[in-house]
């Protein structure tokens, strides 16, 4: 039984792109046993989750943690255990400990600066999404990573999730047919606030509000798109194999009117250009068609939750982090009498069919047309841990092809920011980067009115 279970685990590891077996073959025996010395910078909610996950991975040794907010650092120290040093200053930690790799979970506006420090200190970098606050920062960071040849991974954990990996494989295998449209959302019902440890009357309140609730202010936050949309628009880019051409979007502060200036509800329509299947006989027919992907996020209703729906002419994928469902579209083949109809087209046969009394059973259920789905499950792990395992594997094997590298992070940043722009200016926002290189295009295309 042990043999069977070991084989199954290896299959799953291969599926998640970890490839530990092949990686280990490149290292000497001694090197393969040494854990990677890792430091975590930014130990708030997400950083602590990453830290906790790292402490369960033999391949990692957390040598240091850093946060400039003492209560977060204190809490994280409990997760890290007694053998991890604590710091309030990232540069000091990097200089003192010289870790091999750094995991960065500081607030968005700090990603660029802290990633820069880590690269300068010679480290490989895991950086939380969205990669950077601005497109300029993201472009510069991606260029720097490439120049230095470092291992760099962005924390878009669905890239490590077997459900999404399988979904992409199914799309590429043609199981969905031609993609018709995409619909995704992340709807929740809470005010997104972190509590402030002092009352409003306290002189420290304003500073702490800006520091702890950075997500609520445009000066420090990319809002719902950067915090939530980045995950799901990366899934869309991945499933469609390309980046959007343009987007229109609308958002506002319509409920949580507590002084925040990021929208508490957003709605976007992205347009992607996909190649038409070459079956068409008409040489003058357009080579591409448009797939529209809608995205919404609200903060005062949780009914829809977080999911992506990829709709195709032959099937539909409903995806979440813990479950995937594939629904086949009904085709003529499903209806019992259709093959007979195809075999002979005479009026006599048609008449016979109509009078034969064969009927399609109608159900009372509004969902009857969906039929029974094929279910995809993620039964053996969690994607946060798996993305970290994958990152550590790349660090050990010196493989810069991470499951989500800096260029993918740059494209995700651009995808997210164009929606914010469209929302702000009530325009169509166009893809701002050059198609091939990912650099900012020389002709400013950002402001084009429809």
């Amino acid at each position: 039984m042990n043999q069977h279970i070991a084989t199954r685990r290896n299959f799953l590891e291969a599926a998640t792109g970890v490839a530990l077996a092949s990686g280990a073959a490149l290292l000497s025996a001694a090197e393969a046993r040494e854990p990677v010395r890792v430091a975590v910078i930014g130990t708030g909610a997400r950083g602590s989750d990453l830290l906790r996950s790292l402490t369960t991975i033999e391949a990692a040794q957390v040598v240091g943690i850093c946060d400039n907010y003492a209560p977060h650092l204190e809490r994280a120290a409990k997760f890290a255990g007694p053998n991890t040093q604590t710091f309030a200053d990232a540069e000091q930690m990097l200089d003192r400990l010289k870790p091999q790799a750094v995991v960065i979970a500081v607030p968005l506006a700090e990603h660029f600066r802290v990633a820069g420090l880590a690269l300068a200190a010679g480290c490989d970098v895991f950086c939380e999404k969205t990669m950077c606050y601005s497109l300029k920062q993201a472009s510069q960071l991606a260029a720097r990573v490439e120049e230095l040849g470092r291992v760099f991974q962005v924390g878009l954990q669905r890239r490590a999730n077997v459900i999404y990996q399988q979904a992409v494989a199914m799309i590429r295998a043609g199981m969905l047919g031609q993609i018709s449209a995409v619909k995704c959302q992340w709807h929740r019902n809470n005010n997104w606030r972190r509590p402030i440890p002092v009352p409003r009357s306290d002189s420290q309140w304003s500073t702490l509000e800006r520091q702890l609730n950075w997500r609520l202010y445009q000066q420090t936050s990319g809002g719902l798109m950067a915090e939530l949309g980045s995950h799901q628009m990366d899934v869309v880019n991945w499933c469609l194999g390309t980046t959007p051409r343009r987007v229109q979007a609308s958002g506002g502060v319509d409920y949580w009117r507590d002084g925040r200036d990021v929208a508490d509800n957003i709605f976007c329509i992205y347009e992607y250009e996909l190649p038409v299947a070459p079956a068409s006989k008409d040489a003058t027919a357009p080579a591409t068609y448009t797939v529209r992907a809608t995205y919404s996020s609200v903060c005062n209703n949780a009914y829809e939750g977080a999911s992506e729906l990829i709709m195709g002419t032959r099937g539909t994928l409903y995806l979440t982090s813990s479950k995937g469902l594939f629904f086949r579209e009904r085709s003529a083949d499903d209806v019992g009498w259709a093959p007979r109809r195809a075999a002979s087209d005479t009026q006599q046969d048609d008449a016979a069919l109509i009078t034969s009394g064969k009927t399609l059973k109608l159900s009372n259920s509004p969902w009857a047309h969906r039929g029974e789905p094929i279910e995809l499950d993620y039964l053996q792990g969690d994607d946060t841990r798996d993305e970290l395992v994958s990152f550590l594997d790349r660090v050990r094997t010196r493989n810069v092809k991470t499951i989500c590298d800096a260029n993918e992070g740059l494209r995700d940043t651009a995808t997210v920011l164009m929606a914010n722009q469209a929302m702000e200016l009530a325009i169509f926002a166009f893809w701002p980067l050059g198609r091939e290189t990912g650099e900012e295009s020389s002709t400013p295309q950002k402001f084009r009115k429809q």
Partner: protein
Amino acid sequence: MGTLFEIWLRGPDDEHLTAVAEAALDEVVRLDQLLSRFEARSEIARVNRSAAIDPVQVDVELFALLEQCQQAWRDSGGAFDITAGSKAGVTMADVLLAPTGRTVRFAHTGVRLDLGAIGKGYALDRATEVIERFGVTNLLLHGGTSSVLARGTRDEDFPWNIAIRWPPGDADGSEVAQIALTNQGLSTSAVFSDASQPSDVIDPATGRPLLSQAACAVAAPTATAAEIWSTALLCMGKLRAADYTKLKAPTTIQVAWIDAAEAAAPVLSWLTRPL
């Protein structure tokens, strides 16, 4: 956990209290996702899948909790055992914890960990830490009504009053006792069966299933300790629990036993000094 958690907070700033309560519930959800054996992505599920094959490295928090469970198993003479529900013959002795490396190993296959007997109390204690970190000192939380924790008072004049009801979970049941809970956790474990199905708790004195309906309520400084002891003492049965409480149980706990014979009204008696 499939359990309803509720939180009451008292303080001057509504917006602040809402955010604190949300943060505390986030902590409960975080722990449920890590500790529930029903959640395929949980740490407990990961341990249950692999610990018989290889030692499984767990995080600092879970390792400390497992050590606490191991100590409780020893302190209760084996009555508190998180391997309950594994195949026959398995006990906590089959779970090997190694502090260097923080690893968990099972001595053989067939061992399964289930933190159901401690999970609610543990979640309440951790949630309370979150709440207190934000300067809120008057709070009441419960998980599934069987695990409760209180700090401070309900208002200036009244403490947090908890009523114990029989049958357990029956909204029309009768009130057996009312307890003023001050800076303590309270946990109630119950044996409740009807004529068609005997209790699954064995009375060690007779070797047969407990015939009489019973519940054990324990108050302790932490909700975790309250839950450990209400579970352990209920499993021991009243006679052994009474002896154990006098001789071996920690002096910081207060224990009440509820007897409920079929026809008569339920009776609560204190095995220690009363609350």
